[in-house]
């Protein structure tokens, strides 16, 4: 396509070309490349803008003061000492914590698992066994037989025993009966 055949770039298209030529449609880009009139107009406007920037730079003042950057803080002996002590303290604390952890781990690993609980359980069982042994010593018969024999409360009810078998010295009737018996016999 002959670029001279299409119309020249209008004012807006020329501005668009100054902003970014690649934003123009391809046909206009081709025309701009080929058309001396459009290209000259665009370049003249660009030169004005370039000249404006250059003038600004030339007529602007120059900085009169150098930039001062912060100096690294000087190291004082006291600061070093305090810093050293702080570091030493922190190291000591860390070492103590590590030692505590290592010792704790060692103790836990070497001790038999559940030792304390186990011995306590054994003691309770031993006590229970002794109680059962004591009961058997007192009454060897099982509870069922004791109830059949009426001895379930024998140990606890002396009064009942005394009622069944009164003592000789306190029973006048018996003695009398005995006398009578003697008499009768």
């Amino acid at each position, binding site marked *: 396509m002959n670029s001279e055949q299409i119309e020249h770039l209008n004012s807006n298209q020329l501005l668009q070309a100054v902003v970014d030529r690649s934003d123009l449609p391809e046909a206009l880009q081709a025309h701009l490349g080929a058309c001396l009139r459009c290209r000259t107009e665009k370049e003249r406007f660009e030169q004005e803008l370039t*000249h404006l*920037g250059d003038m600004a730079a030339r007529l602007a003042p120059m900085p009169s003061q150098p930039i001062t950057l912060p100096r690294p803080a000087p190291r004082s002996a006291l600061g070093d000492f305090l810093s050293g002590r702080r570091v030493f303290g922190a190291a000591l604390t860390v070492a103590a914590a590590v030692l505590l952890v290592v010792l704790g781990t060692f103790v836990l690993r070497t001790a038999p698992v559940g030792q304390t609980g186990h011995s306590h359980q054994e003691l309770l069982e031993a006590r229970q066994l002794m109680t059962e042994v004591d009961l058997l010593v007192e009454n060897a018969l099982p509870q069922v037989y004791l109830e059949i024999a009426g001895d379930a409360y024998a140990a606890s009810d002396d009064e009942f025993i005394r009622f069944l078998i009164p003592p000789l010295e306190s029973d006048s009737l018996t003695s009398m009966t005995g006398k009578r018996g003697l008499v009768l016999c």
Partner: protein
Amino acid sequence: MAHANDKTPTSAITELVHKAREGNRYAFEQLVVRFQGEIYRMIYYRTRSRLDAEDLTQDVFMKAFDHISHIKEADRFRSWLFSIAVNQVRDFQRKQRFRSLFKVSDDRADFERTEDQGREEPQALDHLLQKDFWRQVRLILDKLSRMEREVFLLRFFDHLNIKEISKVLKKNESTVKTHLYRALAKFKQESRLRQWLQEVSS
């Protein structure tokens, strides 16, 4: 459009940034030497005061020095530095607006006075040219919106390309182009300044 102040090759700057990032103070000082003038001018175009430009340039490099280790792309140091400067100028202008609520001050008068006081007795003609130029520039810049002005200055005064401007302003490229297009349309209508520029250049 080529950078007007391209004296140091980009690779050399990138190398200096790498060294500065690793804590090399000398490398950072070299970067300061390379960019101080550029940043100073950039701030001066916006504040129109030599003294404020001095102070703000110092602040920009202090911030850059403190945060150089955080820079990810060493080859984009220039746009990174400009983004710090843009933010510093914005903060400064915000504070100025706040102060102006309590104190009536004429920004233009301040600009003229600073200019007159700051110069080291330049030639009379140069001095007149200078005053006239900044007056014309101020007239055109005052007609642009804040974003149009920023994009226009970054593109034609600070010589940043569209991609760099997009990075500095944290806007996408099409937004930057739109603002630049509008700014150029307004500039094109300023036949007085354009004629003046042609006369000066010829």
